[in-house]
């Protein structure tokens, strides 16, 4: 405000100017701040100097002046700064950027102003309308006026950064008011926009950030960094997806972005903020049920999603059977989900890529966040290592459920185990302006038992190093080294002599290098290559205790190398039409040392049809698969708020889970493609319409897709997949198809905001063969286990005051398909169930309502910590949503059971504070 007053003051007095006096002064300054210099001048002369402290902060002066006029002294002092000055009477008025002109142009007080017609030599005047002052638009003078200006437009460029974290803000839309000029920041937050000479109002918007409006005064090409505030301290709206403009302007289809900050008001199950659970409320992403691990994206199986945490694969991103995700919500920045167009740089999974990024720690100050929920406690700490250069984020989360269980009276519960924890560390170092290094380490662990004699455990461990380099203004590179590991184990200690310890271990190491080059305004090229080495121990068993007669045994290790090169071009043909054309070529080698059987060609693969076996030495290539993957998408912009996009995507997958369960399980082993198991393939065609209404207040999207799947894996009924050296005898490969329509309507602003997602989607698989034992449902298409035709989710947030808001989720899904008994039979005196064709029936529809209240701590400035309460009730209606049905033979009788995970309303309170 002070600045505004000074400026206004200037306009009022500006017509009283007259010539300056010529008195001479002498000064000597030795490492004195400019402010003190000014005070010194004021004390020794009659002049008063008007300025804003901000303008001269940090400027030190060491200088001597002998018998010089104030005029000259000031000129000298301000050399090399953006400051101009004017001496009027005994007042020295400093201004930022613009020269002070003694006379106003004649038309200054008329409202019409046509900057484009201004001759460049004309001085630029600006005034802040009353309305804009009320809105608090800050005026920024980027470059000084100089006498050689000739152009009518200039380029403003810079970097958008998060004021809170210092991170660059990608996908920020910057728009110049009243023009068609806009820019979107790249991944590193860089932007460049053409602005009219003189005054422009720019608006910068991105999800999770407060919208920034600035009045820019530009006299020349200039640089200005935008600092945006996270919408942290106020109750944020529930916003999902990329920045509002990206809804329409993005070239890729089927991309969703979830910012962690945006989901804090969504009601939670057991108080855990969960980015992946929120993802399932978006159309096209679903899970088979509350207790199902894994996600099904557009008809894909749970193993067809690539989860990347800071570039490293995470094989099982869930805790406790999928009720919680293993992604720490407090260290996560955002998740980008590609379910339609998958950029060419990603590969290896058919259905989707979940790119999860960890935030950078604050490079300025120590910060922390603590969350206390009914199930877990969570602590996050950020601290600079070298101030302004490097920082570290550490997040840890753990359950106290074991402690609760131990304190229960029930002996069965007392002996139960159920616990998990995860830990993440990210180090970020800005080596210099051009080089950025980040290192992430992550570990998660789960432990549980179902019967007291067996303990199950699984862990994810990963580490990644990313080196981002700005080779030139237009070219950037990324070098990544990542290592991931997934392990699970079963320890069985019964009373007999067969106690054992079973283990599975998967490791992958990837190195990749990518270049991103802006050829010109029309072409942005990305090229790169990657190579990933897999090493899998498919299962090993060891005896426990001296009495155990279990012989140690291990299925041969599996090794494979998956390599790819890719190239893609983001081609802007015109303002309306842009194309993103990508090609990825991937090669997979299954490597020895291994033994691969041969089977007689005209018989099903079984122990009975083995004809021999081939031995392969260490790293000898057993089998090679390769293929092109085409990733093309295009966008046509009917007008700035309405676009049509289409895409064709093909993908290949060389690693698969072995599971004969109806839903994924943490103890599903992963298997590489080998001589018998061919890579899975998928082709997806998608088309979408995208519309923004009322600015970006409402966003609409309607997308349709059709997908073909080949070589999907399935298993013979009751097939033994664990510790099976010749698992090909139990595996079936089939094909599939899925199609659907997804509608998403979002309201981004206002006290009531949120979104409505609906999808109609169908997924069918087919397992056909010339051999009866390899056929399912007579070789016809049957609905997949996660074929959920109708899915509706409504996520709403109502902001009552700045501190209180209410939120609600309404979720509806068609019940998933199940296989039901069509009769019983007797065998060995016992009754058993005869099942129908696979998935001929459905469990009842799923419906759930969650409600929550969010209370922000009050905003006293000096308060040590900012607190946040969330009180939520999951499944308010207490609806008993069946998760599965199963049939057992118990004492000779067949009995049917239905299981549900959450059958009653579950209230939780979570307390969260940050400092």
């Amino acid at each position: 405000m002070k600045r505004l007053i000074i400026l206004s003051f200037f306009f009022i007095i500006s017509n009283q100017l007259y010539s300056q006096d010529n008195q001479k002064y002498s000064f000597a300054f030795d490492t004195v701040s400019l402010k003190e210099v000014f005070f010194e001048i004021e004390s020794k002369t009659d002049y008063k100097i008007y300025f804003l402290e901000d303008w001269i902060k940090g400027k030190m002066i060491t200088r001597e002046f002998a018998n010089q006029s104030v005029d000259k002294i000031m000129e000298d002092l301000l050399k090399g700064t953006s400051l101009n000055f004017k001496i009027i009477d005994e007042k020295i008025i400093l201004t930022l950027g613009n020269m002070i002109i003694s006379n106003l142009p004649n038309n200054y007080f008329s409202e019409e102003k046509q900057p484009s017609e201004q001759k460049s030599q004309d001085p630029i005047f600006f005034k802040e309308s009353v309305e804009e002052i009320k809105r608090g638009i800050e005026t920024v003078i980027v470059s000084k006026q100089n006498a050689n200006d000739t152009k009518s437009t200039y380029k403003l460029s810079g970097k958008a950064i998060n004021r809170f974290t210092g991170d660059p803000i990608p996908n920020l839309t910057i728009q110049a008011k009243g023009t068609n000029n806009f820019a979107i920041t790249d991944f590193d937050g860089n932007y460049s926009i053409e602005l009219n000479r003189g005054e422009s109002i720019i608006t910068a918007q991105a999800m999770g950030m407060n919208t920034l409006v600035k009045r820019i005064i530009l006299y020349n090409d200039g640089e200005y960094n935008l600092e945006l505030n996270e919408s942290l301290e106020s109750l944020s709206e529930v916003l999902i997806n990329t920045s509002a403009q990206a809804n329409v302007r993005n070239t890729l289809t089927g991309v969703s972005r979830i910012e962690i900050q945006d989901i804090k008001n969504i009601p939670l199950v057991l108080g855990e903020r969960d980015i992946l659970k929120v993802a399932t409320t978006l159309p096209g992403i679903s899970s088979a049920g509350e207790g199902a691990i894994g996600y099904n994206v557009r008809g894909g199986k749970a193993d067809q999603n690539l989860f990347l945490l800071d570039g490293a694969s995470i094989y099982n991103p869930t805790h406790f059977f999928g009720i919680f995700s293993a992604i720490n919500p407090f260290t996560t920045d955002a998740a980008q989900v590609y379910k339609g167009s998958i950029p060419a740089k990603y590969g290896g999974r058919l259905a989707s890529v979940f790119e999860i990024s960890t935030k950078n720690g604050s490079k300025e100050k120590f910060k922390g966040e603590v969350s206390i929920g009914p199930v877990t406690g969570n602590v996050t700490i950020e601290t600079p290592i070298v101030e302004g250069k490097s920082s570290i984020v550490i997040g840890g989360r753990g359950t106290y459920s074991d402690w609760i269980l131990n304190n229960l009276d029930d002996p069965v519960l007392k002996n139960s185990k159920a616990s998990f924890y995860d830990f993440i560390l990210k180090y970020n170092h800005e080596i210099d302006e051009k080089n950025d290094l980040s290192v992430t380490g992550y570990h998660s662990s789960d432990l549980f038992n179902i019967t007291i004699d067996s303990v199950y455990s699984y862990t994810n461990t990963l580490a990644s190093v990313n080196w981002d380099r700005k080779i030139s203004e237009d070219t950037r590179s990324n070098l990544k080294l990542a290592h991931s590991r997934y392990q699970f184990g079963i320890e069985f200690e019964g009373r007999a002599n067969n106690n054992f310890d079973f283990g599975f271990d998967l490791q992958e190491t990837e190195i990749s290098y990518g270049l991103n080059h802006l050829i010109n305004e029309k072409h942005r090229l990305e090229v790169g290559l990657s190579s990933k080495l897999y090493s899998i121990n498919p299962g090993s068993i060891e005896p426990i205790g001296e009495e155990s007669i279990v012989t140690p045994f291990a299925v041969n290790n599996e090794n494979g190398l998956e390599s790819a090169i890719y190239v893609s071009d983001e081609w802007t043909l015109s303002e309306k039409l842009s194309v993103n054309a990508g090609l990825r070529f991937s090669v997979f080698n299954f490597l020895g040392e291994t033994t691969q059987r041969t089977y007689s060609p005209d018989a099903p693969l079984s122990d009975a049809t083995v004809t021999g076996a081939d031995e392969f030495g260490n790293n000898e290539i057993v089998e090679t698969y390769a293929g092109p993957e085409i990733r093309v998408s295009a966008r046509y912009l009917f007008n700035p708020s309405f676009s049509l996009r289409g895409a064709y995507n093909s993908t290949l997958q060389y690693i698969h889970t072995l599971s004969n369960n109806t839903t994924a399980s943490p103890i599903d082993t992963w298997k590489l493609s080998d001589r018998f198991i061919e890579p899975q393939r998928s082709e997806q065609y998608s088309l979408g319409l995208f519309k923004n209404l009322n600015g970006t207040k409402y966003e609409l999207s309607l997308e349709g897709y059709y997908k073909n799947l080949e070589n999907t894996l399935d298993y013979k009924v009751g097939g033994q997949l664990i510790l099976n050296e010749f698992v090909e005898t139990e595996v079936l490969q089939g094909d599939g198809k899925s199609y659907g329509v997804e509608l998403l309507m979002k309201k981004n602003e206002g006290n009531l905001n949120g979104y409505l997602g609906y999808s109609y989607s169908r997924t069918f698989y087919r397992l056909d063969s010339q051999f009866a034992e390899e056929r399912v449902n007579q070789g016809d298409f049957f609905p997949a286990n996660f074929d959920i035709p109708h899915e509706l989710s409504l996520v709403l947030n109502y902001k009552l005051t700045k501190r209180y808001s209410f939120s609600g989720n309404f979720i509806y899904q068609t019940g998933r398909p199940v296989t039901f008994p069509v009769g019983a039979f007797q065998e060995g005196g016992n009754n058993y169930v005869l099942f129908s064709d696979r998935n001929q029936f459905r469990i009842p529809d799923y419906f759930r309502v969650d409600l929550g209240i969010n209370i922000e701590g009050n905003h006293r400035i000096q308060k040590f910590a900012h607190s946040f309460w969330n009180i939520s009730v999951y499944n308010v209606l207490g609806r008993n949503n069946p998760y599965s049905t199963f049939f057992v033979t118990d004492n000779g009788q067949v009995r049917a059971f239905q299981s549900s995970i959450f059958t009653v309303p579950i209230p939780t309170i979570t307390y969260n504070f940050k400092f």
Partner: protein
Amino acid sequence: MKSLKKYELIPLKMLLCLSLAFSLMSCVEEIELRTQDFESIIVFEANITNEFKQQEVFISRTFRFEDDGPSKETNADVRVLSNGSPFADFIEIEPGRYLSRQPFAAQENISYSLEVTTRDGRNYISEPSQLPGVAEIESMSVEPSQDGFGNTGVSILVNSTGNSAQGNFYKFEYSETYKIIAPFWRSDNLVPDSQVGPCDFSIQPREEEERVCFSTNESIDIILAETLSLPEDKINNFETRFIRLDNTIIAHRYSILLKQFVIPSTANDYFQKRRELSSQDNLFSQAQPGFLEGNITSVESPEEERVIGVFYTSTVSENRFYFNWVDLFPNQDPPEIPCRTSAPPLTNIDGSCLLEESVIANRVRYWEPNLNQGENEGPYVVVPRECGDCTAIGSNIVPDFWEE
């Protein structure tokens, strides 16, 4: 080529709502079974052993849950072939149960197969099966133990040794017989006697043995073991039966006849999968149910017609084992069936006979005179029949094999 695929690894069974603190709200509830889209399918059970006997084949059909049990497949023509030539004919001795006309024992190195023609003229054939290795039960024992859910009980363990270098697949069946002693047995009983008074009784000695009885159960669960993953073909302390301590069948003297079959891998595969498909699942992941193929197919439509069952040959070894409660738990009272005494009044408010009705319906047994008769009480203290008469739950005939 040693395969471990048959190793039984994941007994993900659970019988209670999930035993985890924060999932106590999750639950498994029983639902009604109704048959939809019923399909009638033929079911074969045929195990030809190396015992010299009339070999057995059972043939039935699937049934609706609403029905009592399977419908038997009668009047079928059943044959066993040896090395592809007709070898033994079977005759139906009761509905669905067929016995070989002549007793025979399966021989080593001969392929046996099954051929059946049903009365509607449809033909079924099995894949051939040969006798696997031989194994002898060497000893049996009983030990106090706990099951996977922490329940205390006893385990009946077996030790066997087989002759196969690679190892064998084992299937166990048992027949358990136990002594029942009625806890509230008296030598006398109430006999309705209107001469004593209206609705009254005289007390007379019981005529039948009602104190000590015996009862026998056949195993129906699939019990499998293997020695392929072990260094030698030896079964060591394998638990064939677990009995909870509160089960009254072990309250006095208990006997088990264990039959051990060495079975071919096809049969083991089949039973292993059958067991997996019929056991209770992990709450969170359900094994994909489906139709389990055996080794018997329809001749007329091998692709379309679904057939249930497996034909196999096996070698047998059996052993009987006894134990007493007191030998295992000398300082612990045996479990008892719950019994409550009562003294119902002789007549009802409307004047009808109350106790007499229960006596005639054979629902109660006399225990003792009611000396301190309270309000609404009769003169006789009685107990439910199973507490005072063991024939309610067993037979008073001592089995031939029984040894004290």
